[in-house]
């Protein structure tokens, strides 16, 4: 009997990953609602910051809209990683490894599911942005590029969550990643452009933090238009994180399958 091709295997697992997330409102809703709520609160509280000389826009919502893209990806990463860890804990992974399913399909299926959900989240953030009056300076083409960048960010962070799940096999350990990712988000140019951060060590830390470049890549499409350098840095960081995390996740998968 012939086994299904790699594409069918990936599609089946991606579908399972998406359906499982959508069936758990506690997993599906917070990654969408919480980043938007935080954006609203921060934008309300920091609107006066747009009066600082050199601030790049007079609409803090436009400035802050980049944050949900990255924060939402962090949320869904932890959820996806936790789901994969649960598969390991419940023995589903072991049973799957007895089938002709290829290891690569398992990883790719989970990541594909994460990317689809990431793009759906991004579409919601863009819609909310348009509804609250944010002008996308890069136009419809920029929105398309934004969705591609969101997909890459989801892929990179998804691989990070998968790597941790495969290494530890523990949902709690993956949940423990969340505060660490949150630190990366807050020690970045999340609320203030890097050139306006006064405290030297914070500015330096933000400059070494890849999340700053992801935020600035998204933000440039919203408030600046087409800024090749910022976009190249944003995409470069997203690709770099994706490659590094995918390699680490593949190695963790190989090791996990050997143990299985």
């Amino acid at each position: 009997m012939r086994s299904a091709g790699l594409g069918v295997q990936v599609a089946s697992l991606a579908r399972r990953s998406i359906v499982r997330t959508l069936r758990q409102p506690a997993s599906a809703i917070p990654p969408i609602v919480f980043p938007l709520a935080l954006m609203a609160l921060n934008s309300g509280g920091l609107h006066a910051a747009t009066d600082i000389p050199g601030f790049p826009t007079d609409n803090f919502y436009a400035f802050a809209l980049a944050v949900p893209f990255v924060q939402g990806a962090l949320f869904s990463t932890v959820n996806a990683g936790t789901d994969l860890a649960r598969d390991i804990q419940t023995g589903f992974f072991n049973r799957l490894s007895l089938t002709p399913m290829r290891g690569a399909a398992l990883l790719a299926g989970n990541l594909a599911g994460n990317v689809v959900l990431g793009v759906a989240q991004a579409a919601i953030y863009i819609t909310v942005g348009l509804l609250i009056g944010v002008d996308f300076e890069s136009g419809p083409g920029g929105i398309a590029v934004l969705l591609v960048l969101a997909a890459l960010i989801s892929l990179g962070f998804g691989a990070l969550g998968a790597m941790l799940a495969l290494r530890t096999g523990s949902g709690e350990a993956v949940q423990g990643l969340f505060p660490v990712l949150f630190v990366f988000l807050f020690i970045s140019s999340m609320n203030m452009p890097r050139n306006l951060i006064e405290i030297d060590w914070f500015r330096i830390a933000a400059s070494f933090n890849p999340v700053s470049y992801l935020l600035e890549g998204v933000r440039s499409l919203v408030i600046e238009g087409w800024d090749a350098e910022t976009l190249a840095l944003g995409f470069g960081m997203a690709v770099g994180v994706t490659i590094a995390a995918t390699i680490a996740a593949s190695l963790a998968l190989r090791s996990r399958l050997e143990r299985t």
Partner: protein
Amino acid sequence: MRATLSVAYGVAWRVLHNVLRNPSLIVPSLLFPLFFFTAFAGGLSRVSQLPGFDRSFDLNYTAFQFVFVLLQSAAFGGVFTGFGVARDFESGFARRLLVAAPRRSGILLGYAVAAVCRWLITATLLTVVALLAGMQVGGGPVDLFGLYLLAFLLNLAGVLWASGVAMRLRTMQAGPLMQMPVFLGLFFAPVYVPLDLLQGWIHAAATVNPATRLLESGRSLLAGSPTEVPLAFGAGIALALAFGVWAMRGLRKAEAAG
């Protein structure tokens, strides 16, 4: 009274013993306030140069953010203890405790005492870090005592709110329900700039938010020019009393559930 205190002592000792011996419980409650303090005071200090900021607050931005993070650590110190209450119900320990305790109100008192002790550790660490980071202090000992007393009231309100939720739902899945209202309540206050500099809907929300009174008054106490202090203490005491009733009713519901 003696029976109540005896139960409270036993519960508080157990909670503190568990928390202090378990890094996964104590470390987040110590690190999160420091992390928020670092992110806000470090990343947003330029905000203090906005026109009108110094009219409302004349110390540095580190001091401005310290008061928010101190109050936040107090409220969340209470909420984190509420997680422990829920965990005790999930594990079945709380049910055995309800059977064994001669005065059940002592259980609630014990959790509250543990929350205060736990927060005092966080507050000490946060204060030391803030002073090392160059926080300016304008107030005298009485002003500072008032500031910490306001935070204590918020800590009490936090643990009573979270305990009330935990005793009604008796599951760890109630965690977001304990956290989110506290988180939103605090962030609907003037977190980044004084109330006068807020505009639009957030100004309207902050004006009616009781947390704003505690925050603005706490900042004025740190600056040594107290304003709205009776109002802030009134709000703090009212919150603690209201959530005290909420928690006692929760305890009765837990008793009724068996």
